């Protein structure tokens, strides 16, 4: 079994920052594991600008922000593996990993940093009634398909939820020639940044309806329409306000949840409010030597804050490893 001082799970900004910081603090034997074909995490699909105002004092796009950290990682000669999925972590820090080419392997670490990011809530988590035609997708999936793969996701679009990713996608799809008919938010105020309401919706006259939700989805193979309704104080749709709106695509932008299946496998305790691991001021979990940072801990609005947090995790993990020797 291969041994490392530090294994970082996840090659997004959190994992990259933590690995770089641990190296700066004298840890030689580090491995970063990433399931995707490239490092950078979710930033690769966030092609809009607004990243790095605090860390770099300039406004970068997601891919640029990621690339700067990937370059640093390479300069620091930190080992990393892409296309490598971590299946399980035991409480004595043995990781089960699987790679497309090299297959299954077990590796052992003195310390582990959890940096798996978050995933999106999907329709299942939402319980919208109606048929299950194609053309219903999450904002993050739409972002990936459009920005990385260059696919066209639809022509007439309704967005449910006013989270930032949904707002950013409203603008993006409009610029790509689609018609974004409406953005709906069940609460009485938008959940995304006002800046994004202004530059993503107002700039293109896309209407935002607050206290509204979708009460039905219609269509057989493909979405044909959605039924939009105002909600009462208990957030239940009011039947008399229902209105059918034609569209071929429904995008869900209804929030992110930290990705913690792996953390649980290691015996890490999860906070029921944040859905992230319970950590102390050193970002260490209840399992000694297992640390966490970034969106796996709680959902961060600003990547700059993810980076700052990752530096703390990297430094504290380095202290832990050095104290073992």
């Amino acid at each position, binding site marked *: 079994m291969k041994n490392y001082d530090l294994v970082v799970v996840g090659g997004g900004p959190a994992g990259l920052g933590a690995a770089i910081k641990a190296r700066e603090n004298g840890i030689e034997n580090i491995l970063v594991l990433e399931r995707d074909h490239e490092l950078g995490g979710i930033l690769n699909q966030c*092609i*809009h*600008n*607004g990243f790095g*105002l605090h860390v770099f004092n300039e*406004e970068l*796009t*997601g*891919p*640029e922000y990621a*690339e700067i950290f990937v370059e640093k990682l390479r300069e620091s000669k930190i080992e990393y593996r892409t296309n490598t999925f971590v299946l399980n972590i035991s409480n004595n820090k043995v990781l089960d990993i699987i790679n497309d080419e090299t297959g299954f392997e077990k590796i052992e670490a003195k310390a582990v940093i959890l940096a798996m990011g978050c995933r999106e809530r999907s329709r299942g988590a939402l319980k919208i009634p109606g048929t299950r035609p194609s053309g219903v997708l999450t904002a993050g999936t739409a972002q990936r398909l*459009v*920005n*990385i*793969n*260059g696919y066209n996701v639809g022509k007439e679009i309704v967005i449910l939820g006013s989270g930032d990713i949904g707002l950013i996608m409203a603008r993006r799809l409009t*610029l*790509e020639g689609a018609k974004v008919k409406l953005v709906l938010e069940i609460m009485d105020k938008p959940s995304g*940044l*006002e*800046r994004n*309401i*202004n*530059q993503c919706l107002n*700039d293109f006259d896309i209407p935002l309806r607050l206290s509204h939700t979708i009460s039905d989805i219609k269509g057989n193979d493909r979405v044909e329409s959605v039924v939009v309704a105002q909600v009462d104080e208990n957030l239940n749709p009011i039947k008399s306000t229902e209105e059918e709106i034609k569209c071929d695509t429904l995008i869900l932008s209804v929030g992110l949840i930290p990705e913690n299946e792996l953390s649980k496998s290691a015996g890490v305790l999860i906070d029921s409010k944040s859905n992230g691991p319970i950590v102390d001021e050193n970002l260490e979990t209840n399992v000694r030597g297992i640390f966490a940072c970034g969106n796996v801990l709680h959902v961060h*609005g*600003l990547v700059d804050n993810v980076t700052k947090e990752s530096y703390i995790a990297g430094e504290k993990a380095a202290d832990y490893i050095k104290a073992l020797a």
Partner: protein
Amino acid sequence: MIIEKTCIVCPIGCHLKIEKKQNSESGYEITGNNCPRGEKYALKEMINPERIVTSTIKIKDLKNLMLPVKTTDGIPKDKVLDFMKEVSNYEAIRPIKRGDIIIENIYGTGVNLVAAKTIN
């Protein structure tokens, strides 16, 4: 008349109040901004609004993988949709380095469209 706008320059999103004032140097009085960038933005919005454009273009000989691109500064807001059409005709040829210029001096603004990612 007071115009209200949310500043889009940074994620704080200050609530700007913009009022026409003949006797001020710029012709407007701006309040609500936390920093000077907000004032600059508000004035631009009144006189010649600009937007940074980010998009993707195709990469020659690569399927299912797009190159992210961005303008190095704002271009006139009313030209954004036309510009997007023009951008969609471009195709990048590897190797591509972050910062490589794709379109130079857009509409004579001095602003360039550049690659936002390195792809070998």
